């Protein structure tokens, strides 16, 4: 009698605790702002890629989408291999990368000093800010016909598209970063005998440097979208050109492969940039 009651009690308590154990683990992981472990981050991050490819495979191999419109993952890889071995795709990639970095570096060389001047000297800001704010909303892609008229369909035109797309954005964001320098640091520098030029050189620029580097990283990402648009029109080489060619041949496998290559290169350059910033500006990381 006693034993049975004890067993019943035990059964009831396990029934109460057993289902809550896994749920509480999930609930603990899903608590707002709770950090995820590195293993969990990598695992979940990869899981989505797997899910994505699985859905794609299901749609194509399962016959839900005609291969005419969307190649399956396997065909895409095959086409990609052909691109490299038969069609010199590596050259296209090289050209596109050079255009992105060329245009981006030109824009940076012009925009970073201008942005610093605007952030530091308010009359310069009052002079340029309204125009730059207007110019940043001019879509770089809309300039392409005009730029072709002015610069032809050569490299200059491609670089200019990226330059126009990036330069105004960088100017404004750099000006904001420099203008937002902590006032008390500037005051401290003055009480230590710094001149006006010294404050710009030794306080404003180093204080804003980590943010400027982050701005450049962000804009480099945008430059990748501009370059493809520039290459879709009036181009004879580059990833964008390959994509247009493949469209004419209805080769969706190559198009998708090209898009993925852009994504991978973007991810690599972004990661490298981030790592570089972290090394250069270790002092700014809490």
């Amino acid at each position, binding site marked *: 009698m006693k034993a049975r009651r004890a067993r019943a009690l035990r059964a009831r308590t396990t029934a109460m605790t057993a289902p809550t154990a896994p749920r509480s683990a999930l609930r603990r992981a899903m608590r707002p702002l709770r950090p995820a472990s590195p293993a969990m981050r990598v695992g979940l991050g990869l899981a989505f890629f797997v899910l994505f490819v699985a859905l794609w495979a299901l749609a194509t191999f399962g016959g839900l989408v005609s291969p005419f419109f969307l190649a399956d993952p396997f065909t895409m890889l095959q086409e990609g291999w052909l691109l490299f071995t038969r069609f010199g795709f590596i050259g296209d990639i090289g050209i596109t990368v050079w255009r992105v970095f060329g245009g981006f570096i030109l824009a940076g060389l012009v925009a970073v000093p201008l942005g610093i001047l605007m952030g530091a000297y308010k009359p310069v800001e009052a002079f340029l800010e309204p125009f730059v704010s207007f110019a940043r909303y001019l879509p770089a892609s809309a300039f392409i016909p005009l730029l072709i008229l002015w610069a032809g369909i050569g490299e200059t035109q491609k670089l200019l598209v990226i330059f126009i797309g990036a330069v105004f954005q960088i100017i404004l964001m750099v000006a904001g970063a420099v203008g937002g320098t902590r006032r008390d640091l500037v005051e*401290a520098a*003055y009480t230590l*005998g710094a001149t006006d030029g010294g404050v710009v050189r030794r306080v404003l620029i180093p204080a804003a440097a980590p943010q400027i580097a982050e701005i450049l990283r962000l804009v480099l990402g945008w430059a990748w979208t501009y370059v493809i648009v520039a290459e879709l029109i009036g181009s004879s080489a580059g990833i964008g050109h390959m994509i247009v060619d493949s469209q004419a041949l209805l080769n969706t496998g190559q198009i998708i492969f090209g898009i993925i290559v852009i994504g991978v290169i973007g991810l690599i350059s972004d990661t490298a940039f981030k790592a570089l910033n972290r090394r250069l500006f270790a002092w700014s990381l809490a």
Partner: protein
Amino acid sequence: MIEIEGVARTFPGARGRSPTRALEPVRLSVARNDFVTILGPSGCGKSTLLRIVAGLDEATEGQVRLPSGPVTGPGPDRGMVFQSYTLFPWLTVAENIAFGLREKRMPKAERAEIVAFYVDKVGLRGFEGHHPRQLSGGMQQRVAIARALANDPAVLLLDEPFGALDNQTRSLMQELLLKIWEDDRKTVLFVTHDIEEAIFLGSRCVVMTARPGRVKADIPIGLPHPRLYKLKTAPEFMALKERLTEEIREEAIKAA
């Protein structure tokens, strides 16, 4: 050394609001080698007064006169330590201390010598290569003091430099500052709202009224040097504390 001649400050009202009078005309004379503490309730304009002496803020009336002439802007002759942590986060401890010396274009070897001297003085040997974010609040303020002193200013201005520190650290920092002052007797103007701090550090304590601030009392602190922390519980210290507590309490009630 510092002549504050009828300095007043009114902040203009924003968007049609009436302007704020932060400081009634203040007249104050600080002798060479004196350690003057300015005690007042928060918002009494004591920091504004100090900032005007530093040249970081402009007086609407009156002027501040130094032996070199009237103050027109900030300069290396008046070193300043702020309440907020104002070390340059991208520079190491040694580079922060050398900031003013580099601005003077002092040769590297000479610079290194002075830096080493002040690193020692504030007890931070071994931390020369650290960045500010690696230091505690107390250490950061020690570097800030060393950075101001390395410039060899005629006057040292301190704006509640230990206000953000915990009580124990604050006590230690007061002793450190006092020891530094006892060594070379620089002219110091020290703003605080802490009565004990004002008595323990100062050779003279100026009490200010609630906003708009003016000088309410000017009390000499005749306690002998060197002062040790035990002094804080001595009867003569207590007597001064009681007197200043009365003075400041009335103002605090007005300000609260």
